[in-house]
């Protein structure tokens, strides 16, 4: 598959980038439909499908009952019989309600059937905290799905990535979980007007640097860029890598960076214990052990559910300050 990373042309918000991807993909391929709770008449509670019902009609933009297992099954059965569905699970926190369908059916059908199935299914969802939505509407659960063979997982960090990764996800002939971020929805960036793909499985060096590698997931990319600026003031030249796809994971790009910088940390919004940062840290020390001058650090949420109260939530969710502090701690340790 060739990746066309087209030239930026205008500013677009993250939310508009997602809905533009949906619309352009649906214009291109009549086998694509979008189904989920309140995606049609309501345009999704996040606005990601606004305007689609009007353009594509109720046959292709479908409001479903509140039945997440049914929704995933709808997508799976349709994908297995020749369509290219996009199904929406409103909040990532609701994935537990349809976990069996995703993990035991969607992910395994191809393998269990000896390869016969082709499953071009995209599961779109929204993750992340920051809006005082408390313990059941704020989680980042990507680690669960990265552990499941048969699934691909992407976590766009901004509008450009949101569009390009969505296009790649929908065009991919495998089940892909696209995890967008609520708080990022209003973020603006240059986004090409045409349909472009960002290749799945390829990390992007967002900011090149020589002294330290930060592997940042999703919303932690802009936060880590801020952290890098803060650290630049200290005279530190930090490289920031956005893996973009978590499964399959682009180990090579990360390892290459660490071999150059000799120090690294992984930053994500998810709970630190058992997060994808653990896997990435484990891989870095496996592949770049002799190059490491310090242990690979991890920044993630502490070990509690997401609290409601704003000051607690602020304390809970990692940000640029915490990332920068962890970089300093790792460097200090080394001294």
């Amino acid at each position, binding site marked *: 598959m060739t990746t066309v990373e087209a030239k930026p042309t205008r500013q677009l918000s993250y939310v508009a980038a997602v809905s533009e991807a949906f619309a352009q993909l649906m214009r291109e391929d009549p086998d694509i439909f979008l189904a989920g709770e309140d995606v049609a008449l309501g345009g999704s509670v996040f606005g990601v499908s606004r305007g689609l019902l009007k353009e594509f009609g109720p046959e292709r933009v479908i*409001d479903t*009952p509140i039945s997440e297992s049914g929704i995933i099954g709808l997508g799976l059965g349709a994908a297995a019989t020749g369509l290219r569905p996009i199904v929406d699970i409103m909040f990532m926190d609701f994935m537990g309600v349809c976990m069996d369908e995703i993990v035991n059916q969607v992910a395994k059908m191809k393998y269990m059937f000896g390869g016969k199935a082709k499953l071009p299914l995209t599961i779109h969802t929204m993750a992340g905290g920051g809006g005082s939505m408390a313990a059941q509407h704020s989680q980042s659960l990507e680690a669960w799905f990265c552990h499941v063979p048969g699934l691909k997982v992407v976590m766009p960090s901004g509008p450009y990535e949101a569009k390009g990764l969505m296009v790649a996800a929908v065009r991919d002939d495998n089940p892909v979980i696209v995890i967008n971020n609520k708080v990022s929805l209003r973020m603006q960036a240059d986004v090409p007007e045409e349909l472009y793909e960002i290749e799945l499985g390829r990390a992007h060096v967002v900011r090149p640097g020589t002294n330290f590698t930060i592997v940042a997931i999703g919303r932690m990319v802009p936060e880590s860029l801020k952290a890098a600026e803060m650290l630049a003031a200290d005279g530190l030249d930090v490289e920031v890598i956005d893996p973009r796809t978590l499964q399959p994971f682009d180990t090579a790009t990360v390892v290459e960076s660490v071999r150059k910088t000799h120090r690294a940390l992984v930053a994500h919004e998810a709970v630190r214990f058992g997060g994808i940062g653990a896997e990435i840290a484990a891989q870095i020390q496996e592949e770049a052990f002799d190059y490491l001058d310090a242990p690979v650090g991890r920044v993630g949420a502490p070990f509690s559910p997401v609290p409601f109260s704003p000051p607690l939530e602020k304390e809970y969710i990692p940000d640029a300050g915490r990332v920068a502090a962890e970089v300093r701690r790792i460097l200090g340790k080394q001294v």
Partner: protein
Amino acid sequence: MNVSTEALRDMHLRMVRIRTFEEEAGKLMESGRVPGSLHLYVGEEAVAAGVMAHLRDSDQITSTHRGHGHLVAKGGDFKQMYAELFGRSTGYCKGKGGSMHISDLDLGMLGANGIVGAGPPIAIGAAFSNQYRKTDNVTVCFFGDGASNEGTFHEAANMAAVFKLPVVFVCENNGFGEFTRQERHQAIQDVADRASGYGMPGVVVDGMDVMAVYEAAGEAIMRARRGGGPSLLECKTYRFYDHVGIRGLGVAYRDDSEVLEWRKRDPITMFERKLDEEGLLSAGEAAGIHETALAEVREAIAFAEASPFPDASALLEDVYTATD
């Protein structure tokens, strides 16, 4: 039915307290003083009031994302409720839960819940516990028309029936799941039609008429209390405001005329008219009750806003119970 004046006035009070709580809470959310999103119960008060009038403190309820009304009707304290909405350490959940998880286990309120359909499985657990411990407590499970399409409702209803558990499933059918009208999310008109598929009685009542709710709920709760097993009570009601927050008019998914039609059947206004006609509560008395409720709400808001936010050290507390 023969209902004492005291009981009638009690239900009226519960409804007024809910309404007043919600109106002020909604404004606080819209103005950004209260964080997060609130799902208001305005228009549906007769359901909570008519059901809860039959419950004791030792009975349990499970609630939904639209939970303030249930907690108020179950006897929730305004101060601790508002403090929770404001995310303060004096709140029912020490600020950790907020609107969507507001609860008081001591009142048998097993939680508002952010997951649609999460209540029914928990409710049968509480009901099982009552049966196991040979109490005559009852558990009431509130859920919406939208929630009736979740698999959890099905599993819990079936288990309740086969185990003859002391539980009453109360469907608050307000005609919508978010922006999706009932006719677009299920091919039936009465959620109560599902009851026979589990082997339990199903009843439909006018959820704007607190007396109708009271009567039907009384029967169902009494049946459960006496070991007669579960039942399903559907209350046809309407959400005056939006799915989240106040607005509710001028939206794409329903006509204003429909909203205005339902508002003519405001459960509180209708009940006050009736009580006044029967000489059980004058318009003046009613106004006084509203005023008192508003004063209490204002006091609670003042208390909440004067309360401290939880300390950062609270973040990692309450995740586990220390076992001794």
